């Protein structure tokens, strides 16, 4: 009896939440529009191999009403009968809300959806890599707060070595090694010397900021030859890149982007379906149990933390070698920390981390798009958007996320 009434109450709450979203759409977006305004969503990109599919133009108010009706319907259905997959429906309602926002923002104007999705993925790449680095470390119970510093080291190394050799792959490899070295430093501090892991990670961040800033201002900024790395070229995949929308977004990318997607899949499979993954998770949850069964706790942790450092280094290299082609002081700009938030939001799973990073990436790309559309929201607020999303997500949506039980505790043999 008790359980049932609790369930119905929760189901009802969700129904009301959906209706609140519908009401918000009505109140926030409809008043600013007129019946004659039209919204255009474009889907074709210039210089793209994808087959053109044109664009979608519709009455702004018509589109808004349609989305409101959808949300109202879902809310009413939830109240009356209830959905089995409430979280999926919540996703649909939030998506309708975002679409309503875009419809409103792009009234009497045009917004390129494919472009925005593309930007979403690209901006999510470094965040995802940071989150993956976190997953690698925390699944075996080493907290890595130094991801930011490892990324910065990777970025600097890739710029320097890339410039010297004029070879992107050598630059990338250098970044992996530098990240791995920073990972090894964290591992030695956290595992061998049992330094508090938050302090050790912070030390790595300060060390990396200091070193890269010094060498950057001393050499890289004054000697242009040292800060002119080549960049990765786009590698459109044959045939796949010609699919509309999906082609340009997923299949027309640089090598590091593909590498990130492959890493997400590989780490996910490795973590949950292989011997290494089982041992890693056991070490993260109950290291003594693993030890009594002959699993080497220290070795597992060293390997994972060093690999985690390499992945963070890759994230740094991506920032340099995929777009800006130069190193600037503090160019990671907090992505390592947002990656940690994505890891928690994604509940310490690689695929979850990717999904969370995409949300952050979307918030980031929305900011740029809205600035172009001259939406009357102060740009400072738009700049805050990704961080607001981070906080809301961490405080509310995730609920109680369960980190690995031994997270942050050094292991001592008895």
């Amino acid at each position, binding site marked *: 009896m008790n359980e049932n009434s609790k369930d119905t109450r929760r189901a009802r709450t969700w129904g009301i939440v959906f209706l609140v979203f519908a009401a918000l759409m009505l109140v926030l977006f409809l008043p600013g529009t007129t019946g004659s305004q039209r919204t255009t969503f474009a889907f074709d990109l210039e210089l793209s191999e994808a087959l053109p599919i044109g664009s979608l133009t519709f009455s702004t108010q018509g589109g808004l009403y349609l989305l409101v009706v959808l949300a109202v319907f879902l809310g009413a259905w939830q109240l009356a009968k209830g959905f089995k997959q409430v979280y999926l429906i919540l996703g649909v309602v939030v998506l309708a809300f975002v679409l309503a926002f875009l419809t409103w923002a792009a009234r009497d104007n045009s917004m390129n959806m494919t472009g925005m999705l593309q930007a979403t993925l690209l901006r999510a790449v470094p965040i995802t890599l940071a989150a993956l680095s976190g997953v690698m470390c925390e699944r075996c119970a080493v907290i890595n707060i130094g991801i930011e510093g490892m990324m910065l080291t990777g970025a600097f190394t890739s710029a320097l070595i890339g410039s010297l050799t004029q070879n992107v792959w050598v630059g990338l490899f250098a970044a992996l090694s530098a990240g791995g070295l920073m990972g090894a430093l964290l591992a030695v501090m956290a595992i061998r010397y049992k330094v508090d892991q938050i302090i050790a990670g912070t030390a790595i961040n300060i060390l990396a900021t200091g070193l890269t800033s010094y060498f950057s201002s001393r050499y890289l900024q004054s000697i242009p030859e040292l800060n002119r790395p080549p960049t990765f070229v786009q590698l459109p995949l044959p045939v796949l890149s010609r699919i509309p929308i999906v082609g340009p977004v997923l299949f027309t990318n640089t090598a590091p982007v593909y590498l990130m997607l492959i890493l997400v899949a590989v780490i996910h499979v490795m973590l949950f379906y*292989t*011997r290494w993954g*089982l041992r890693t998770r056991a070490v993260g949850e109950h290291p003594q149990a693993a030890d*009594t*069964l002959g699993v080497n706790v220290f070795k597992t942790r060293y390997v994972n933390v060093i690999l985690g450092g390499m992945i963070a280094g890759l994230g740094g290299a991506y920032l340099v070698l995929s777009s800006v082609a130069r190193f600037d002081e503090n160019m990671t700009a907090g992505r390592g920390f947002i990656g940690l938030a994505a890891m928690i939001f994604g509940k310490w799973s690689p695929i979850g981390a990717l999904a969370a990073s995409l949300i952050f990436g979307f918030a980031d790309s929305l900011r740029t798009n809205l600035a172009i559309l001259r939406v009357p929201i102060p740009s400072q607020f738009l700049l805050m958007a990704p961080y607001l999303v981070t906080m809301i997500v961490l405080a509310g949506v995730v609920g109680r996320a369960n980190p690995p039980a031994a997270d942050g505790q050094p292991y001592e043999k008895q």
Partner: protein
Amino acid sequence: MPPVLELKGITKRFPGVLANDHIDLTLEEGKVLALLGENGAGKSTLMNVLYGLYTPDEGEIFVRGQKVDIHGPGDAIALGIGMVHQHFMLVPVLTVTENVMLGMESIKNKLFLDREVAAKRIHEISEQYGLDVDPYAMVGDLPVGIQQRVEIIKLLYRQADILILDEPTAVLTPQEVHGLFQVIRSLLAKGKSIIFISHKLKEVLEISDSIVVLRGGRIAGSALPQESNERSLASLMVGREVILTVAKEKAQPKEPVLEVKNLRVMGEGAHVVVRDVSFDVRAGEIVGVAGVQGNGQTELVESLTGLRPAQGGAVRLLGKDVTHASPRVITEAGTSHVPEDRQRDGLVLSYPIADNLIMNTYYLPPIARGVVLQEAAIKERAERLVAEYDVRTPSIMTPVGSLSGGNQQKVIVARELSRPDQLVIASQPTRGLDVGSIEYIHSQLIRKRDEGAAVLVVSAELDEILSLADRIVVMFEGRIMDIVPIEKATREDIGLLMAGIHPDEHGADVVATKEAA
């Protein structure tokens, strides 16, 4: 045929301590060897030597007549030695199969875990030894008794034939102990040999084929169960005569100190777990609350001490209503509380003994003068209480966490019983303690009673209730089944009441009618 396992002259020294002093042990095939000893007697050290977690300073180990060197759990497993630790070595968020296969995983396609093959083997082992368990269940969702089966399956999966069970009954209910003993018998029937570590005399007498008693790192003696009794084993273990039955005068109850009327308390998850409970405790008597763990006793005590809000009913302390009073008000009214989980609720493990001893008086003179703590007074009190309550510690500044369980409990008892209390609430006061400490804590509770305090003892150990209490409150599913004066209490009747059955006056058992909630 040589014995399956032989230890000869095992010696292990730690800085300042001789943990094992030339220990000899022989385990015959298909037999249970019980290793009996108080906490700190060196049982765990010896087994950790055998399991490869410690390297012995002297001595030799022979497995089936062959001399062996064991450098780690891996070596021990390879020799067929497996150990069920007192604190289970299980990962709660992994399934039974994953826990069992960890460290020797079945692999398919050279990379991927083969859960099906492992689950099938677990199923076979389950069938063979009567260890029923669902291979795909999450370990964290299983009750403690089943988790212990998983631990045993883990050993059998590794083809261990020498099984070390370290205090296996400490966490089990009486029914689960019974189940464990059946499992042990079926293991013996299949030729496994078992080392059974315990300090519970009754269990050792029931299950073992031979008994070795350790004391202070040495072998104090060995015995055969059929030639021993609890008394003889206890004195071997403690090194002197032990009084197993508590000596006490007949109670002289006076006015009621604690009156509980129709108390209702919610547990975790918003279920009512204490249902309309009414009883009183008088000055100068001990009331024992008997019941299988998890029948509302924990929540009852938490509510009486102000740690958990009451949903209904009334609690009166010395005539004053304290139903919704804060813990401090209840404490200051003269209540002392020995909590169930001494490490979580009773002590701050990283604090020194001296600081733990002032936890409920730190704001009162002479400990505090204004906002300043008085070092001298704290030291003086600690020195006095440590001596008075026989806490064995190198110094009063030793962190409480590094003391043995018995001495930790003595620190709590010293803190709580050294005040002029009117009411003592002691929850599982001797859980996990050695005979010496149990004897001491029981005598302190009786002293308190004889000084005129009302004492409420909650225990899952029926023997403890029967030897301490003047009246027994039996709880089942949150209700009081009956309140029995000690003169009329028998083991059988109380046991039936604990299971929810009223022993009828005509001798026939009738199942208690469960009223609708």
